[in-house]
């Protein structure tokens, strides 16, 4: 029998993975697996007692925790859907021949780069029911604005609106990149065939910006499901717990010292994100091949 041939020399050393692998493995992968175990325990960081699925039972029976779960889904779907629609409309507008296009692109995109906490505090003040600028403007138009953040009916959606305000610039940018990459021959052909603006949009721009749509949906869903900073800056989950999301529940339970329950919240969030995002991205990407 022949000894196996000596390995061919490669300049691409596996050692290059090592530093990344250590940091990523120790600080991300290990905690992720550890969370699966600790979510089944009552935990004080120093000792943990195995209690089976108690934390999860609590998570789905306590009304305020259940509310956090449903709010997370609502928040993610509302913000993601709005960013798709508004982002596409804005991108079509901002690739058309309008005056001050550069200014408009900049102004729509800039909030993406601004501190979320700063934006949250600013809009908390603007949404003040009595003195805020928004209700002031509405009353000038003869509309009696609600307590955006103080009324349980509106609190979550108000925060979602601010999230859309801050994030739509990124969706727009992604759509602009998609629209600009459409080969101009297609558009010329449509023009020669006498297609209207709407038909051009419906038959050419919309289907060909599908990769951009997939990116926007996936990115904004992941961001929306994990959203914490804006909600914490604006309502702290209130009034009561009506605008709590899973991420804010995780923080509240962590502060209260319920580490096992907090970690269970993390596991629920992990499962929710993967259960929604993975099948969706598989489905969206597969249909693209069919086209």
């Amino acid at each position, binding site marked *: 029998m022949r000894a196996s041939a000596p390995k061919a020399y490669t300049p*691409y050393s596996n050692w290059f993975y090592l530093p990344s692998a250590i940091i990523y493995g120790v600080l991300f992968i290990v905690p992720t697996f550890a969370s699966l175990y600790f979510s089944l325990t009552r935990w004080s960081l120093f000792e943990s007692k195995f209690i089976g699925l108690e934390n999860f039972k609590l998570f789905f029976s306590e009304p305020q925790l259940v509310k956090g779960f449903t709010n997370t889904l609502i928040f993610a779907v509302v913000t993601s859907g709005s960013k798709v629609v508004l982002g596409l409309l804005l991108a079509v507008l901002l690739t058309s021949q309008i005056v001050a296009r550069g200014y408009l692109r900049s102004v729509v995109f800039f909030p993406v780069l601004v501190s979320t906490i700063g934006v949250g505090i600013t809009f908390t003040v603007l949404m003040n029911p009595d003195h805020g600028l928004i209700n002031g403007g509405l009353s000038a138009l003869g509309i009696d604005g609600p307590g955006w953040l103080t009324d349980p009916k509106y609190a979550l959606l108000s925060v979602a609106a601010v999230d859309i305000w801050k994030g739509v610039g990124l969706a727009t940018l992604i759509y602009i990149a998609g629209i600009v990459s459409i080969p101009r021959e297609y*558009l010329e052909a449509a023009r020669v065939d006498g297609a209207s603006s709407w038909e051009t949009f419906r038959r050419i721009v919309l289907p060909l910006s599908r990769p951009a749509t997939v990116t926007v949906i996936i990115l904004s869903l992941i961001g929306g499901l994990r959203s914490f900073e804006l909600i914490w800056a604006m309502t702290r989950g209130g009034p009561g717990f009506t605008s709590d999301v899973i991420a804010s529940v995780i923080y509240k339970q962590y502060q209260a010292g319920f580490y096992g329950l907090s970690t269970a919240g993390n596991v629920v969030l992990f499962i929710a994100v993967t259960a929604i995002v993975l099948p969706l991205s598989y489905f969206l990407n597969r249909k693209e091949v069919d086209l």
Partner: protein
Amino acid sequence: MSTAELVNHKPGRNYLLSAVAIVVSIVVFIIPFAFIVLTAVKDRQQAASLDFSWPHQLRIVQNFVEVVKARDYMLVIAFINSTILTVASVAGMVVLAAMAGFVLQRRKSRWNGFINFLVLSGLIIPPAVVPTIWVLQKFGLFKTMPGLILIEIAFGLSFCVLLFRAFVATIPRELDEAATIDGAGPLRLFFGVIFPLLRSVIVTVVVVQSVAVFNDFTNPLYFLPGDQNATVQLTLYNFQSQFSTQYNLLFMNILLITIPPLIMFLFFNRQIVAGMTSGAIKG
């Protein structure tokens, strides 16, 4: 004729639509920022009325000095902390992710699928908070700056690896072969030949990630609590309750921490756009 014109058919510009767009953009986007600036330079009483009005007296310098001095120069310490955090973690991300992205793109092995899976997991899976604290505590890194730097690197690696991997694919392999024949070892090949060629994507990664780390609130909140360690985002959070009657100082603080991203935006707009839309065309 531009692509845009072909989409819209109309020759020339649409002035009515432009006017509407500009007015709406002012109401929706400019007014909130103008509100921040105006409130930041008002005196305390006028700021408390929360309205959109011209300041009676411009207190730019006084408010600036007051907010900087607040709580024993906490904002200054916070800016130093944030700078250290941003520079160290972004530098770490760039070097580590470039190395990993390079080998991942160049070397085909049966591990590639698994590594790609890990990279994508990092983008999707929300980090488990308390178990991460538990691990940090085991290493004595909880509530320390090095601990937070490593955390930011760990959570940012995935995005960077994807960008580097895509860019390395555009560098011809012949270059590697030539360098290897000339006697360059793996380290020399990477740091001497490849790394300098990555310059444009490095700029993109640096700009995008430094804005992200500088603006990060959640990770410092969890992993580096305590006033002495505050980063700029946490000062805002701390001042929010303390300055509930001093909106002028709160908004001066918001204004100050908006300046670094604004500078990035003014100078590196193109790189930011490139980084953030990198997934758009291929999907």
